[in-house]
């Protein structure tokens, strides 16, 4: 066996199946479909090569620029609001002495629910006439808010629901990192008189920085490809208020006037954006010191 493993060809043979499958189902479709980004293919008629027209059309469309802005808002919301809350709740749960597993399970439940379920569930919660949110607000004299029909409220509503869905997953991730830290340090700091907040800020957070970095990166990647919750809750509406790049792709590539050529070019733009942002993050804030 030892002799066998010394043969470099064995390693190659072991890797080949994975590489073949990877090329067959990932590289090949990606490369071939990229070609369609430069055509006017609609799925039915004979397509023709139109150069960069699709890309020009995308960036000339104010709706797409608006969609990019919404993706940036998703990222900003994830990094500025979600991540601090994730850390806060993770530290909170890590320090409870009773029913810790119950809390862990409770925060994790939204992540295992299907997005369709969440969309429909929150559709009821936010319903202008019968939803509990408006019922509650009406007790304080607040007028009916059309959460998903009003351009001013639709995006915040979707951001909150999206955060509600995914925060639990990240909380459990950060919680695992916190629970893996040696308890002695915390105890020593406690003996030295450090308060809970000081211990969290000066000890726990710096020690879990690598996992926070991963959470931020995953949040950025997630915000770039967010689409399901948007489609289920608002379909990008009202009037594009919640449109993100991927929902713009779905609406342009399919639907009333299918244009797969344009859709492919949008997907390439999304891919480039996601790659760029992730690289920027990794090259700056995400870089961990050796």
């Amino acid at each position: 066996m030892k002799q066998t493993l010394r043969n470099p060809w064995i390693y190659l043979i072991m890797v080949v199946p994975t590489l073949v499958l990877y090329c067959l189902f990932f590289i090949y479709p990606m490369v071939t479909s990229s070609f369609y980004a430069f055509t006017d293919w609609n799925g039915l008629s004979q397509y023709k090569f139109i150069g960069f027209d699709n890309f020009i059309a995308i960036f000339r469309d104010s709706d797409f620029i608006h969609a990019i802005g919404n993706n940036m808002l998703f990222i900003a919301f994830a990094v500025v609001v979600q991540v601090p809350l994730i850390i806060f709740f993770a530290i909170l749960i890590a320090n409870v002495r009773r029913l810790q597993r119950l809390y862990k399970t409770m925060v994790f439940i939204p992540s295992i629910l299907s997005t369709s379920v969440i969309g429909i569930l929150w559709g009821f919660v936010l319903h202008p006439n019968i939803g509990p949110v408006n019922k509650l607000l009406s007790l304080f004299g607040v007028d009916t808010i059309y959460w998903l029909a009003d351009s001013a409220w639709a995006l915040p509503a979707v951001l909150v629901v999206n955060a509600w869905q995914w925060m639990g997953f990240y909380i459990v991730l950060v919680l695992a990192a916190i629970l893996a830290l040696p308890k002695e340090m915390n105890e020593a700091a406690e003996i030295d008189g450090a308060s809970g907040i000081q211990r969290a800020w000066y000890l726990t957070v710096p020690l879990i920085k690598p996992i926070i970095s991963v959470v931020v990166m995953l949040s950025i990647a997630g915000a770039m490809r967010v689409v399901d919750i948007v489609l289920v809750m608002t379909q990008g509406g009202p009037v594009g208020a919640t449109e993100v790049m991927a929902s713009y792709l779905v609406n342009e590539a399919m639907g009333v006037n299918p244009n797969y050529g344009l859709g492919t070019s949008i997907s390439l733009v999304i891919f480039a954006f996601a790659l760029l942002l992730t690289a920027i993050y990794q090259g700056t804030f995400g870089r961990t010191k050796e």
Partner: protein
Amino acid sequence: MKKTLMTVVMLVLVLTTMLTACSGNNGSNGNNGNNGNSATEGTNSTSTPSPTPTAENTEQPAEPFSVSLRHIQIGEAQKFRKAILDDVVAMTEAEVPGLTFELEGVEDSVNRFTKLPAEMAAGNPPKIFDLFGGEGDALKYGAAGRLLDLTPIIEELGLSDKFLNLDQFILDGKVYGLPIGGNTEGFYYNEELFASLGLTEPKTWDELEHAAQTLTDNGYTAFAMGSKGAWVPLMLVNTLIGRYAGPDSIAGLASGDATWNSPEVVAAFEKYGDWVEKGYFTKGELGFEYADMLNEFVTGKAGMMFDGSWRSSVFSDEAQAGALTNKVGFFTMPAVDGGIGDQTFVNGNYSNGYGFSSDLTEQELVAIKAFIKNLYSDEMQLRGLLEDGILPSIKLSSDAMNQVEDKIVKKVITIMSESGGAFSHFDSTVPSSVYKESEDLILKLIAGRETPQSVGDKMQAVQDKASEE
């Protein structure tokens, strides 16, 4: 030796993986001679499969086969037409040995705008499917060779001269789809609410706007509207265009005889915008679905609703209409001041029906012929009219038509017979790119992000571009 064995094992593994990955289940239809272009339908079968024949069986029972059938008759409001479809399916299965239909119910707009276009692009639509007529649907798919040419079939079945209107399904003299019924669009109104507010059925434009204002002033929604799907407000816009710019304008927009930014067409958008500003429509309409619109009307929160005559059966069904059962009236859009052309024209469509895949085996073709024969029979068309309020798409005798008792259906028939003619919906005459733009722009008009003139100008720009192509 070990080395060689290891290498052979690994190679076998690699080859097995590759072969598994590359193989397809093309054999599922292999026995019936399918040319392999269609994928197996992953649908919910509603029928039990017939037993598989064996070689020993001397009676040679028919070889079992299935035909996929996509319909849009889902939900309570569609229960009557679903029952008719179920009966047609059962009759056809009984007639054609070995046949089992695989029914799949899909929501109307999901089928029309998401599933079917993708399946058409991939070349694997269901064998029978709900289809709309017009440029963006039947004619486009027909031109691409995806639809079965029904001309010889309806000729063989003696149906060629029976259909009232096949215009939206005919391309180059070939019929690519068959409408299941006809419809017109108009205003439903709550008779009790109108009476309580001292209102009568509006006969003139002033009376209509007076009714809308009175309803609004009394805290009711004048017109229930669910604009989450842009086609819903576009129904009203279409009839407004027909009134302001004349009945010929709808066809003229596609042919170039009329323009979207002409003062007459812009006047239609202006009227819609005016009603939005006056608060006549449902508050937050952009967040409500088509079904919500009906709910608002049925629960008495709205006095009127602009919808198709296909909704009429709801108001004679207590389970759906509740307290409003048989207390709903229907009227067509009154003439507008300064409107062009004959103002008695109505919006009339024979646009929704069934289409059939061009990729069929002999057996499937037999099944489809039987399906057409059973569905487009006098009996089923009359049932559609009496039970569901759907105007027949084939000529029925006057005796048959006189059997109608539903007051809304009676009114619809009267309106259509008294009208000077019918204009269609522009979604069936203009290219898909133009219709898509109209969906985007009507929502922006409602949201106050476009003016009627800018809507007209942008629509015309897209229309010009489409015409050039």
